[in-house]
């Protein structure tokens, strides 16, 4: 039993981190819709989960977790989770997916609007019992106001769609875990930025980070992130890899505990990021409330991703049923 990332998994995360540092600096969030996507595509990022036969590396969600966390830490815009994680479960054979030439958005159940749908070549509309594939040319989009400037929302209408009977559950579970991993990255960056600010900013003659009230709130954020992350890691192990490719999938089917584990991960990651955002704003004071500071992008991402793929409350409600109803046990 080795509940720690392998060197390969960490190396992939470090590579993505380096690319995002170089090509998705905070300034890019103000000007570009998909900064660093080309460079990520060049790395093979969009083929990581695709089967060998589709030009992919046939990795599992757990393998790419550190890399996904980095996309959250960098606040990377664009439908990353939808294209790199959800699509390989549903449309692995789609030409151009592995190369990053094709971009996918999704309208999950329970949500009103599809994020980044204007960038998408393909829209997945998930319904109970199956899903619809809608191509760009059949879609009519209406922009809707949302909290996150780098994750615009769209109301979706369409006349023509292709209905698919395959279950959409495993794909949504994987996308939910990927979103939880991004939330961990967002929370870590909010914590780091706020710690740096608290060291530099003085009030009443001392760095505000030397005040116990500030210290203890930041410590609470650190604890929340520290204990949310392992739940995300476990959930990634539980969801199983995409199995749609001709060469067969990498990691098989979800564990019986997958739904419970995913809800635990998403709720904990959303709450940790929400706490990190709250404390970041409080420590920054009024300056954190301005459009000039980059902080706002991470705040917005914490809020928008907390509501994506099931709100924290929805996942907490599922956990009540799963845990109190007597689901799969804890021990092997």
């Amino acid at each position, binding site marked *: 039993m080795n509940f720690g990332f392998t060197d390969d998994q960490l190396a992939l995360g470090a590579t993505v981190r380096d690319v995002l540092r170089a090509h998705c600096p905070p300034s890019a969030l103000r000007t570009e819709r998909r900064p660093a996507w080309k460079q990520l595509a060049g790395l093979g990022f969009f083929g990581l989960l695709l089967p060998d036969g589709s030009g992919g590396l046939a990795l599992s969600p757990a393998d790419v977790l550190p890399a996904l966390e980095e996309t959250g830490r960098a606040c990377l815009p664009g439908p990353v989770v939808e294209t790199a994680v959800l699509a390989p479960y549903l449309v692995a054979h789609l030409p151009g997916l592995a190369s990053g030439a094709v971009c996918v958005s999704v309208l999950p159940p*329970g*949500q*009103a*609007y599809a*994020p980044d749908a204007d960038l998408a070549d393909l829209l997945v509309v998930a319904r109970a019992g199956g899903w619809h594939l809608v191509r760009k040319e059949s879609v009519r989009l209406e922009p*809707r*106001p*949302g*909290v996150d400037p780098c994750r615009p*929302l769209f109301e979706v209408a369409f006349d023509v769609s292709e209905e698919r009977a395959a279950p959409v559950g495993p794909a949504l579970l994987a996308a939910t875990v990927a979103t939880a991993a991004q939330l961990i990255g967002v929370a870590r960056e909010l914590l780091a930025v706020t710690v740096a600010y608290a060291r530099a900013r*003085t*009030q*009443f003659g001392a760095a505000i980070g030397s*005040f116990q*009230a*500030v210290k203890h709130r930041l410590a609470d954020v650190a604890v929340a992130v520290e204990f949310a992350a392992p739940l995300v890691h476990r959930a990634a192990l539980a969801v199983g890899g995409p199995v749609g490719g001709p060469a067969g999938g990498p990691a098989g089917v979800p564990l019986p505990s997958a739904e419970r584990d995913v809800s635990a991960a998403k709720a904990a990651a959303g709450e940790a990021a929400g706490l990190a955002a709250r404390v970041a*704003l*409080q420590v920054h*004071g*009024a300056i954190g*409330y*301005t*459009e*000039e500071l980059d902080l*706002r992008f991470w*705040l*917005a991402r914490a*809020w*928008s991703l907390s*509501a*994506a793929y099931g*709100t*924290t*409350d*929805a996942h*907490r*409600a599922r956990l009540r049923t799963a845990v109190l109803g007597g689901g799969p046990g804890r021990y092997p």
Partner: protein
Amino acid sequence: MDLDFSPAERAFRAEVRDWLRAHVPRPLPPMDTAEGFAAHRAWEALLAGARLSVVSWPERYGGRGASLIDWLIFEEEYWAAGAPARVTQNGIFLLGPSLLRFGTPEQRDRWLPRMARGDDVWAQAWSEPEAGSDLAALTSRAEPVPGGWRLYGHKTWSSRAAHATHGFGLFRTSGTRHHGLTYVMFPMDDVAVRPIAQLDGLPGFAELHFDGVFAPESMVLGEPGDGWRIAMATTSSERGLTLRSPGRFLATADRLVALARDAGSATASATASATASTLDPALADRAARCWVDAEAYRLHTYATARRLMAGEEAGPEASMGKVFWSELDLRMHTLAMDLLGDRAGDTAWLDGFLFALAGPIYAGTNEIQRTIIAERVLGLPRAGARP
């Protein structure tokens, strides 16, 4: 002890309610736009015409000399009616009480009626870049010149300054820390205003740059060097009754409960299950808690109003109210966001959420309020003190 409104109080409530029902406009454009500013100012003039803009002020200045209880009734009805936010707020709630208490008869006659009608719209100029919560560290200064003062320096976080006609704040005329600060009013004409865009993209705040702006003698409030004492009286009213009357939070809580009920109905019809419990009970619990807490804030304020009407001073207890209402407001708006999910932007709740986030920060951060409560209400020693 009772909660029974007198016949006069009930009549006043009925008058306010009827007038608002007849006159409250459809939602106005945001007051931080030029168009919205003008619309809000027109609304203030309409209110003033009915002598409802500053009901607690003396009649001489445009009010009705109403009691604090009447003012609370007005506020309850005002916000319950969905009436517009007050663009004159910094003037009528911050500067106004200070003018009434510390101003000369000439200053009161000159400024208060115009303020009550929205003819002048006042912006506050407290904070500076290096003096946010620590007001005593102010460095902006006023230099004496014949007939008045010239102002120099840099203020920030001035609410709605982009469109205001006048401003007021503290400027150093001598001394260090809280000694030698002077309370100055000034026209905005010669102030260089740089709007600060907020999370919602609108310039709710501005930076003010002073490079010799002239303020005549007649626009100094109280004695030169006495500004700290006057400002403390003002910020104490900012934290206390006047900035955040319960009416606002009661209205928010009532709308929140309605939103939660709707969410429950939507869930019930979506699941097509007649027997299913409609709203997630965890969300229902938070909604009920907010509703009750808004009620607690209202009741607490009634008790405080009675004490103030009996002649007591608003003491450091006001800090407890600031912590309570700001956290309640944030909890309410956070719950609305959680209820609405990705539909939040379709409603006014998103803007309200962004605004509520600032509540624990402005008017003295809640960290500072907690320290005030601990030291001045509970009597705990200051940092470093030995018993």
